[in-house]
């Protein structure tokens, strides 16, 4: 199962690629896990471009959302009991132009509930202190056996 394999990879490896998600492959995303967070890296390629010389807002939204998903996966307490993690709402603020270079994103779980997880995700290029876009994402957790949940 893709989600279990993704979870195992993000929890056990320190770096790798999100190629098991075809959309992650399209965006060409790899990850690096430190003690405190999972960072996603999206090198520049022409297929990410919207208007000439600028990253499409949707490329950045996709990166921010995947960074949020990665943060939720590593924050979940029980690796053996993985819920389906579905984004319900996402709000992206665009602060600076996405220039034709690599983009990094990392997300923070603001609140980890039993059903809802609130996540703040941020993307930058040259300087983490000067983000190019940020997103609030609310995820819904769907446990297969929700009735018997502890």
């Amino acid at each position: 199962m893709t989600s279990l394999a993704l979870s195992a990879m993000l929890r056990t490896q320190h770096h790798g690629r999100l190629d098991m998600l075809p959309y992650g492959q399209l965006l060409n995303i790899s990850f690096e896990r430190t003690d405190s967070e999972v960072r996603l890296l999206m090198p520049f390629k022409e297929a990410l471009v919207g208007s000439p010389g600028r990253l499409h807002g949707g490329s950045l939204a996709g990166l921010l959302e995947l960074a949020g998903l990665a943060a939720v996966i590593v924050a979940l307490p029980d690796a053996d009991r993985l819920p389906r993690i579905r984004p319900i709402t996402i709000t992206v603020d665009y602060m600076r132009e996405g220039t034709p270079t690599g983009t990094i994103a990392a997300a923070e779980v603001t609140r980890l509930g039993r059903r809802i997880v609130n996540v703040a995700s941020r993307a930058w290029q040259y300087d983490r202190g000067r983000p190019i876009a940020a997103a609030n994402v609310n995820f819904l957790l769907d446990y297969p056996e929700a009735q018997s949940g502890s």
Partner: protein
Amino acid sequence: MSDLTPDQRQARFIQRFMNGVPHHAALGIGYKAHGKDWAELEMPFAPQQLADPDYGIIASGAIYTLMDSAAGFAVFITRGDMSPHATLDLRVDYLRAPAPGATIVGHGECYKLTRQIAFVRGYAHDGDPANPIANIAGTFMFTARPEAATA
């Protein structure tokens, strides 16, 4: 050429313009229709849109891209020229998963223009506009090229 009406000529220009965006080509997003203050793009199913191949679930990021572009396209149409703008913010509510393999249509509408900001809303559906899969609201800001700035 000359037998095209101005509307047809505009539609063809827009079609070429939208289809020339690299990230649209990557996801298979294309022109569908437009009116005075609205625009529609469509995204036929393609494997690279998938987030979870086990369930045939399309990445929400692909739907986000479709909606960002449909809304931006509606702003171009409403302003009546192709002068540049940038998304300031955009919220997408994912109401339900689209049917596996469905073509997704993104409808964007520019309901208010001010001197510097365009306000947009819209929805996405997978066949029936009355049963949408996503709803959006956002703003775009106008970005004049530096060399065009006079003040």
